[in-house]
Every structure is written in structure tokens, then in C-alpha cells.
């Protein structure tokens, strides 16, 4: 059974079915959305059970596409993409459940969501350069319409900025892909990884092009400016997908393309990339500290967390010690998953808060913990996870990244300061929103209902599980990272 293909295209097929369906009420649309994303989630669990192999890609599915130029439909998995695929299908499933209250043009909304899921899964599983680019770009289109159609006040401007910024960002990747193709005669990513076709100055130019693309996507300082605007204006599920899934395109590409396909150039530029990671981590934390808009604050902490991932990858390229390299890559990959779980949950919770209060400004709240204990305690737990408290999801990831950094490039450990800053900003946010004197405006606020609990609880459980017993996840990543060829 071509499960990878099935999982990738089931969502878009569901969307098409919805378009031709005679009854397109909001109820039917959301029912379709939950059913399809649920089935896809099950499928990815089966894919997980079939496992990966060390030193290469598993579960490969191939089909001719444009034989004239050596482009084919190729899907496959390894320990880097599998966790991201699972994260993607989980977050889309939960987003579908959460979104069931959207009544404005629900069928179109659902079609876009399902199209995004296809694009996201395809991006992580594609083993063909051109195919990867196709999925990568389709996700932009989907997200643009999602923000422009269902976002908040200033959505048109934010959506435009997002689309133009990220398209400008992704075009250099196309150049790099064409360069890799012309020097190897195929678009097969496995060939590019096994025998990096570019050397010398060409490799460095390709690396610069790819770094630009992925830095915009991650986003790393100083090309992060689209992120706060897009996040604040996007609808809640859009923010969750953007932060939880689409930012990972950047870090995934950083490893899959930049590190694996131009390894020598990457090692040469390692210190610079490391510096970008450190600056992003610090900048994200300090910028988040300055926000009073809760959604913007979380958006900036994403820059901080993704900065650690960049650091991990850079350290892996710099070190000569295979053990340290594996630790760094394990940490970076785990950090991608943890960030998806934790930040996804935080955006869900803020969405729930905003649904009730129609405000995101922390100064407008106060003492909510007694009023809405489910919402409050969930937020507090996730905030603690986000600041890297031991026992929660970010700790094992960041610990490994810092361990490898300390070993390879001790100067970069100053990024650890960012953890103190994030701790401060989360405590301030918790104090402002959930503690202190109660604001009379919110006396009527309801706590989470059953549907909302259904969305949050899986993420709470997973956050604790990854924090306390990360080995099941790390093992999946570790097998591949140990034998990662570059």
C-alpha cells in the first residue's frame, strides 16, 4: 500500500470532494475536515509503525513525472521527516476539531486547510527537488488565502506581506535546485545527498541561496519581520499551522538541503550560521519581552526557539566528533517537534482566550485563573514548557543543543541567556493575565468546553511525555542522525 501517497493526497481529495458535494453546509464541511484529518493521522501512525531504516530513506514510493529532465514523483521518510510528519498530521487533526466553530464560508476554509495539509506532508516526504519545491510553494498560496480570508483586523496587509516576503524568500531555493540539477542531471534528492554534486564556489553560492530561503521560513534574524504580522492577523488554526508546521519547513530544509547537499560549504560557513542562530535566539527572547500583545509575544518566542534549532544544526556541521554531532542533531530535531507541540498549544489557548474576550492585550486581563482554571492551568503548564523547564518538552531538546554547543563553540553558549529572558516574560504574562486582581469585565467568562479540552489535552499529555520520557521520540530520530550522510 502506498501509504505515504495516500496520506499526502487524502486531504486534498477530501477538499475536492467537498467542492463537488451538493450539500456544503458548515456542518458537513467541518465533519469532512475532522474525518479526513483523523484518517490521515491514523495513516501516519501506521507509517510510523512501519518504521525507518538507518542510513537512508525508507518506505520509498516512486512514479515517473517529467522524465525528460529527471524529475519524478518520489516520496520517502527518515528519522528527520517522520517525527515532523506525525506532528503535522496531529496538529491538522486538532486544528480541524478546533475550527469546527467557524461558520463564515466554512467549506472554503476547510478546503484551504486540507490543501495546506497535503502541502505540508508533501514537503516533509518529498525526495525529489522539484516536487519538494512544488509542495513548499503550494503551502504559501494556502496560507495566504487563509490569512487574507479569515484573519483579524489588518489581515489583508499581513497576508500580502507574508506572500510576497516568503515568495521572494523561496525563489533563491529554486535557483539552488536548478544548480544542483544541472550539475547532477537528476532531481533525485537521494543522489544529491549521497554525492553532493556541487563543490567550491558553486556550492557556496547554492548554500547562500538556500540559507536565504530557509532563514526567511524559519524565520531567523534579520529576515523574520513577516512573522509577527502574519501570526497576529492569522486565524487561530492558521497560527497553529504556521508556527507548528510551516516554520519547520525552514529548519527541515536547513538540515535536508543546506547541510546534507552542500556539507563542505555549510561547515565553512558554520560559525556564521551559528551566529545567526545565537542572535535569533537572543533577539527573539528580548523582542518577546517587549510585547504586550500575547499573540505577538508567542510569535517572537518562536524566533527564539527556532534560533536554538539553527544553533544545533550549525554545531553539528562544525564539530568533528561524531557523538557530539549526533547529540546536536538529535536536539535540533527534537526541538522542532517540541516547538510544534508547545507553541501549537499556546496559540490554541490564546485563540480560545480571544474567542471569549476579543482582546489579546495582556494588560486588559487579570486574575483569570480562578475564573477559567482549565484555560489558566493549561496556559501555565505550556508557558513553563516553552521556557524550558525540566520535565517538559523543550528541556531535553535544548539541553542537547546546549551540550553540543558548549563542547564545540563555547562562545555561543551566551544564547542560554535567552532562557532567563523567556522565563521572565512568561512569568510576567502569567502574572498579568491569570493572577492578581480580577478584572470585572471578564466575570462571565466560560471555561474550556468539551471540544476545546479535546484539542488541548493531547498536547498537554505529549508535552509532559516528551519531557519526562523522551526516549521513544529520540530513538526514532537518533537512528537516522547517527548515520546521517553529509
Amino acid at each position, binding site marked *: 500500500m502506498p501509504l505515504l501517497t495516500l496520506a499526502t493526497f487524502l486531504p486534498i481529495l477530501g477538499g475536492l470532494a467537498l467542492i463537488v458535494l451538493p450539500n456544503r453546509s458548515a456542518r458537513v464541511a467541518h465533519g469532512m475536515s475532522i474525518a479526513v484529518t483523523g484518517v490521515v493521522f491514523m495513516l501516519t501512525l501506521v507509517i510510523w509503525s512501519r518504521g525507518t531504516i538507518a542510513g537512508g530513506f525508507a518506505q520509498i514510493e516512486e512514479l515517473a513525472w517529467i522524465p525528460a529532465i529527471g524529475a519524478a514523483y518520489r516520496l520517502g521518510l527518515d528519522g528527520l521527516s517522520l517525527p515532523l510528519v506525525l506532528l503535522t498530521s496531529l496538529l491538522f487533526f486538532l486544528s480541524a476539531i478546533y475550527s469546527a466553530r467557524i461558520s463564515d464560508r466554512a467549506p472554503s476554509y476547510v478546503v484551504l486547510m486540507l490543501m495546506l495539509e497535503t502541502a505540508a506532508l508533501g514537503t516533509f516526504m518529498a525526495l525529489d527537488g522539484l516536487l519538494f519545491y512544488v509542495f513548499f*510553494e503550494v503551502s504559501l498560496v494556502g496560507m495566504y488565502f487563509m490569512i*487574507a480570508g479569515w484573519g483579524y483586523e489588518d489581515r489583508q496587509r499581513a497576508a500580502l506581506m507574508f506572500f*510576497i516576503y516568503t515568495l521572494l524568500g523561496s525563489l533563491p531555493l529554486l535557483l539552488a535546485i536548478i544548480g544542483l540539477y544541472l550539475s547532477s542531471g537528476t532531481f533525485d534528492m537521494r543522489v544529491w545527498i549521497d554525492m553532493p554534486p556541487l563543490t567550491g564556489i558553486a556550492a557556496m553560492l547554492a548554500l547562500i541561496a538556500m540559507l536565504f530561503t530557509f532563514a526567511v521560513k524559519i524565520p531567523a534574524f534579520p529576515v523574520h519581520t513577516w512573522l509577527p504580522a502574519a501570526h497576529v492577523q492569522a486565524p487561530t488554526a492558521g497560527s497553529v499551522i504556521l508556527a507548528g508546521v510551516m516554520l519547520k519547513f525552514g529548519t527541515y530544509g536547513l538540515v535536508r538541503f543546506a547541510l546534507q547537499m552542500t556539507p563542505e560549504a555549510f561547515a565553512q560557513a558554520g560559525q556564521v550560521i551559528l551566529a545567526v542562530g545565537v542572535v535569533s535566539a537572543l533577539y527573539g527572547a528580548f523582542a518577546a519581552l517587549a510585547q504586550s500583545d500575547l499573540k505577538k509575544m508567542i510569535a517572537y518566542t518562536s524566533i527564539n526557539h527556532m534560533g536554538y534549532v539553527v544553533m544545533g544544526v550549525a554545531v553539528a556541521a562544525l564539530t568533528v566528533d561524531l557523538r557530539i554531532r549526533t547529540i546536536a542533531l538529535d536536539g535540533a530535531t527534537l526541538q522542532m517537534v517540541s516547538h510544534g507541540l508547545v507553541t501549537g498549544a499556546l496559540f490554541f489557548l490564546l485563540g480560545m482566550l480571544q474567542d471569549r474576550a476579543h482582546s489579546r492585550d495582556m494588560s486588559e486581563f487579570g486574575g483569570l485563573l480562578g475564573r477559567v482554571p482549565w484555560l489558566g492551568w493549561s496556559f501555565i503548564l505550556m508557558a513553563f514548557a516553552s521556557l524550558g523547564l525540566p520535565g517538559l518538552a523543550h528541556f531535553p531538546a535544548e539541553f542537547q543543543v546546549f551540550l553540543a554547543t558548549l563542547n564545540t563553540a563555547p562562545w555561543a553558549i551566551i544564547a542560554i541567556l535567552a532562557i532567563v529572558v523567556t522565563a521572565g516574560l512568561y512569568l510576567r504574562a502569567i502574572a498579568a493575565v491569570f493572577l492578581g486582581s480580577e478584572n470585572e469585565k471578564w466575570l462571565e467568562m466560560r471555561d474550556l468546553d468539551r471540544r476545546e479540552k479535546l484539542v488541548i489535552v493531547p498536547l498537554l499529555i505529549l508535552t509532559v511525555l516528551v519531557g519526562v520520557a523522551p526516549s521513544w521520540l529520540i530513538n526514532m530520530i537518533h537512528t537516522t542522525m547517527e548515520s546521517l550522510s553529509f
Partner: protein
Amino acid sequence: MERDLSFLIPELLLSSAAMLMIVAEMMRAARLALVIGLVGLAAATLLTLPMLHADTTVFSGTYRIDLISGWAKLILLPGTALALLMVRAEITGQDREGSVYALICLVTLGALMLAGGGDIMVLVLGVVLTGLGSFALVAFPRDDAATEAAMKYLVFGAVTGSVMIYGLTFWFGGVGSTLFSALGALDGRPLVPTVGLVAVIIGLGYKAALVPFHFWAPDAYDGAPVSIAAYLSVITKLAAIFAFAQVLRDLPLSSGWPLVIAVVSAVTMTYGYLTALVQTNLVRLIAYSSIAQSGYFMLGIVALGASSLAVPGLIVLGAAYVAMNLGAFAVVMISGRSLNDMRGFGRRRPVMGIVMVIFLLSLTGIPPLFGFVGKVYLFTAAIESGFVWLAVIGILNSVLALGVYLRIIVPMYQPAQDIDESSEKSPHPALVAVIGITALVTLGMGFLAGFLPA
């Protein structure tokens, strides 16, 4: 002789159809003329298929039956049929309806001659045949705007055409033959290749609406009926581009033509999109953006000598361009000519809205649509032939393109103004058919691009 004629069956069919259409028009049977045209085009398309893999010439080397001319027929003939349907939807029942159909078929015949020309004389004949018909088509509405547009088009065409013929005589003088295949003898000679090259760029550049010979295009498109604008922006333009390919692949590289074309390409793309960014008239906006598209085609012309992907790229983008540009114009025929008419269009007509988004994103070059495949071919060809800077400019222009096309897409989903009656009218079935076909091609061929020429 019989052999030569057998290779010309599609052209002969088309010209006989055009003659029959004129007879039908004399009998005031416009509908019959349309049917004859569609049948003729369909038959000519089908009869092209068997000779797709031929690579030969007829009539002493003056007319080429090769990959370019074969695929040009497969692209231009169905494209013309779609354009006929669009014209039908726009001018049904008007006076002189049948002559328009006949003229269109004659212009397409000229287009085929341009795409297959292997000789200076055939080239000139093609330019004249496409030109004369087009002037009359633009002037069809008989109002001030159309007359002015046709006049501009005619004067521009007459001047550039004469300059081209004058310049081409230098080539004839230089090699003593009018065949393109003889141009190799110019290798290493100073001046003579350049004079002819400039002449060709002026004459064909005018037809393909390359900057700086594009001035007629926005006026002509805006003055003519929308469907005629659609036809001209697609068929005559592609013909000129295929003619460029036929001429320049025989011109020695020592004359430096790739660099000249590369500069024209870069200027055309950038100027077209920058100007499109400030248009408020939808037809003019698409007119300027299709000027920019001509610049993209030139990427393939630049790479002709050095990359095996250049010709397939021209063919793929050509096919994509026919589908997406005709489709976009067809939607404009429903929505209205002003950018304001687009306000709320996507909410009033959801399906048409989605389809328009598909056309515009394909024109931008967003995957997995057909336009993207064509652009990838051409970018790859340009890089392979060493014009990395040109590919970079092309890629940067894709961002400008997005800006241009988003100017249409964004208002489509803004809340509608008060709905006027005309928007409630259901569109002509021929138009719906055209939009359906072009949308399927734009969407589907992105996935099936592997079946196009290797």
C-alpha cells in the same frame, strides 16, 4: 511536389477553411462560418499529429516541418479554436461576425508560416499576413478607441515591417541566399549579422510586444474587443517567438545575439511588470503583464544554442501561456474591464473566482500549475547556457508578477459593492466551455508535463 504538399496539409486545410468561411459570410451565415472554422482547426490539429516527429523541410528548404513548427501547430490551432469561441460569445449577432472568424483563421495561417519559416521570404510573408488581418480585427468595433488603436497598430507595424525587410536584405547580400540555414556563412563577419539581427528584433519584437517595440499593445488590446485582445496577445505573440527561434538558431553565435536578446528579455520582463503595477484598467494590466511574459519566452531564445531544454521550454511555456492567458481574458469578459469590477467577484461567483486565481497564479509561475513547469524549463535552460544573471532577474521578476496579479486577486475576495444587474447574467455557454478547458489544461498539465516533448 506531392511530398511537399502532404506535409502542408494542416496549412492547406486551414486556408481552405478560411475561404469557405468567407463564402459562408457572404451568405450571411456567421454560425456556419464558425462551424467551418472549428472543424477546420480540429482537422488540421489532428493531421499535425502524425508528422510531429518529422524533421525535414519542404519547398527547397524554405519551410520547416520540425519540432518547433509541429508543436506550434498543436498549440496555435487549438488556441485559435478557443479564441473563436470567445469571439462568438462577445459579438454574436453583430454585423460582419463571419468576417471576423475568417480573418482570425487567416491570421493563424500567417502565424503558422512564422513558426515554420525557414527562409527570409516566408518570414516576411508571415509578418505581413498576421499583420494585415490583425489590423482589421482590432478595428472591428468601429468606434474611436478601436480606430485609434488599429491606426497605431498599423503605423507601428508598417514602420517596423519595412525596417525589418530593409535589414534582412543585408543578410541576403551577405550570403547570397534567403535561407536561414545559409546564415552560418556569416560566421566571423562584422556588421552584416548585426544589421540583420537588429532588423529581426525590430520586426518580430514588435509582433511579440518586446520592449521597446510594445507601445501599440496596451492600446490595441484595450481598443479591440476583449476576445480579440486575447487572441492577439496569445497567437500572434507566440508565432513571433517561434519565428525568433527559427531564425536565431541558425545565426552564428559570434554575432553576439544571445547577449542582445538577454538584455531585451531583462528589460521587457521588468518594464512590463513595473508598468502593470500601476494600471487600473484590467485589460491594460493583463496587456502589460503579457508584455512581461514575452520577456520570459526570450529566456528560451537566449539559450537556443547552448541548452537542449530551450526548445522544449518554449513549447511548454507556449502551451501553458495559451491556456492561462486565454482563460484570464475569458474571465475578464465575464467580470468587466475595470479593476473595480473585480471587487467581490470571487464571492459573487465562487467557481469563476477559483478559476481566475488558478490562471493568475499560473501566470505568476506558482507550482504545480502549468506555467511553473514552463518557467522551470526556461530558467534551467538559461542557467545551463551561462546566463545565470538573466535567470536571477527572471526569478526576481516573479515576485513583481505576484504583486501584479495579487492586485486582481485581493479585491476579488473583498466584500462586494452593490451588485449591478449585468453581473447576475449567466455567461455565454461558449465562454464557460473555454474557461473550463483552459482551467483543466492549466491545472492538469502541471502534473502531466512529462508527456510534452523531450
